[in-house]
């Protein structure tokens, strides 16, 4: 099996604003290897989140190709993309995006409802995911009964539970104080180093980016690699 997880070739994304066409990026080519932990930084409007959306199959490029695990995903139908996302991608959002009426465990179980796993097996996996993020004792709490950091941990458990190829994180610490943000980032780092999870994280925060193995700066539609950790 190749070490390359994603291959982006000549990727472009344009938006139309009225009669005007605005290019977010053009001819973007890059690869992401398995086990990478990449921080994508850049000024507002540089296309960081758009790139994440293209990697996650929730947006389609204007041109070029997105290949993940040997499968070209940019030309899949919405239904096939939905199925692909459910088994290959875990999403972590800035504002957690938990279902307020469900308990933490029920939120974590959501991706497993798309599988053929038995109820017993689902419960077992939810328990494991909750233990990984050190929130097993809060399984029956609803999101409003949890702190911001705890809610983000639940979101991480939800992203992990179906054992996806990649975790895509959109400003995962943007809504948290420094100490809590560090805890979340340490958790992500642990998932990368201990479980080998590939992580692509969009962030404004240089301190957060330091937790990644690679930092990429997106500016005017081009990548500038600025640093790497061991």
């Amino acid at each position, binding site marked *: 099996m190749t070490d390359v997880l994603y291959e982006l070739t000549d990727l472009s994304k344009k938006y139309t604003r009225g009669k005007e066409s605005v290019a977010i990026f053009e001819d973007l080519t890059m690869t992401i290897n398995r086990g990478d932990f990449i921080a994508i930084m850049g000024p507002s409007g540089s296309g960081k989140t758009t790139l994440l959306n293209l990697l*996650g199959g929730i947006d389609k490029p204007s041109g070029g190709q997105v290949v993940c695990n040997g499968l070209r995903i940019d030309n899949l139908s919405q239904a096939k993309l*939905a199925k692909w*996302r459910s088994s290959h991608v875990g999403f972590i959002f800035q504002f957690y*995006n938990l*279902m307020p009426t469900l308990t933490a465990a029920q939120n974590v179980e*959501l991706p497993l409802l*798309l599988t053929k796993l038995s109820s017993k097996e689902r419960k077992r996996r939810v328990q494991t995911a909750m233990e990984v993020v050190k929130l097993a004792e809060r399984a029956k709490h609803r999101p409003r009964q949890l702190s911001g950091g705890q809610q983000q941990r639940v979101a991480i458990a*939800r992203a992990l539970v179906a054992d996806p190829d990649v975790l895509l994180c959109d400003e995962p610490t943007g809504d948290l104080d420094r100490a809590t943000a560090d805890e979340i980032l340490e958790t992500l780092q642990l998932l990368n180093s201990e479980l080998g999870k590939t992580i692509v994280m969009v962030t404004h925060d240089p301190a957060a980016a330091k937790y990644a193995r690679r930092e990429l700066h997106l500016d005017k539609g081009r990548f500038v690699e600025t640093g790497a950790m061991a």
Partner: protein
Amino acid sequence: MISQISAVTSINLRSIPQRWGMSLATILSIALVVGVLLGFLAMANGFRATVSGTGSESIAVLLRSGSQAELNSGFGRDTVRLIETAPGVARDEDGAAILSAELYVITDATKRSTGNDASLSLRGVDDMAPRLRENFELVEGRMFAEGSNEIVVGEGVLREFSGFELNSTIRMGPNEWRVVGVFSTGGSVFDSEIWADIGTVQNLYQRGASYQSIRVQLDGETGLTELQDYAENEPRLDLDITTEKEFFAQSAGGLSNLIMYLGWPLAIIMAVGALAGAWNAMYASVDSRVREIATLRTLGFSGFAAFVGTLVESLLLAFIGGLVGALITYFVFDGVSASTMGGSFTQVVFSFAVTIQSVISGVVLALIVGLFGGFFPALRASRVPLLEVHG
């Protein structure tokens, strides 16, 4: 797919309390629609049950040909004599025809509910009349004495009109009558009548020896045909002969249909209003959960699951509204006694009847409102852009 749908539906339903105001307004507007519909249906059903429930297959009603209602009918003693000897008429142990020749006049009485005067039937009968009414029972007092100004009144009259209490004297027109008995025929149209001796009624209303209807007990299954054949071939007779059941069914049809024709259009017009309410509530439901829906779809849930989940929420609100409307109508209207103008321009006392069939009709109407009210919002839910996940 089922687990997806049940998860999305569960999330939707659990979030209803977060929008309780809008949801409650939807439930109440649908309850109102169903309440109005069931009110009309209860009225129509009650009236129909009272009038068409009256009458027997083994009793025939004889009216002058073409008269349709007793009020328009009329014939003399000679006609009664011919029927007394006619074939098809059952006879008692002494060989006498089981037959009741009756006179039917309209009188006024005061309604308890409004204090207004309304028309009532005063029926002149002899002692054969009770025998030709199924379920006749004298519940209080005694029957009137022959040749007296005594009356017996149906339970409906006692309930809905004032002045008919047992042993009281009541003036109707120029005459005073004494109430000596109260009878029941099990809620049929006769319970809305006053009965007196036929000779007295003929005298006081100057009707000579005339009659307006004859009721006969038919002799077996072929009795009706035999009697009809006889009447058709006897040149001195000019009569319409039907079973009593058919006679009342025809009388009931017109008014109960009129009530139904008023009730359904009114309910449907109101349903359109409730539809707008349901629409608003469901659009609000979808709009308030755009990010949740986008998140679920980003996780891999299908647009169809989002569609069904929203539709089920709408149907549930409508179903609750329908049940609330049905329950309120049942507790407020079922069994409530009322009176209205019957087939002979006299008051017929009947009870509102909220039947299972009409409850089902009401709930089905509510579900139709829920279905249409939820369809387009559900479509919107299924098409929420995935990029709203960052919203």
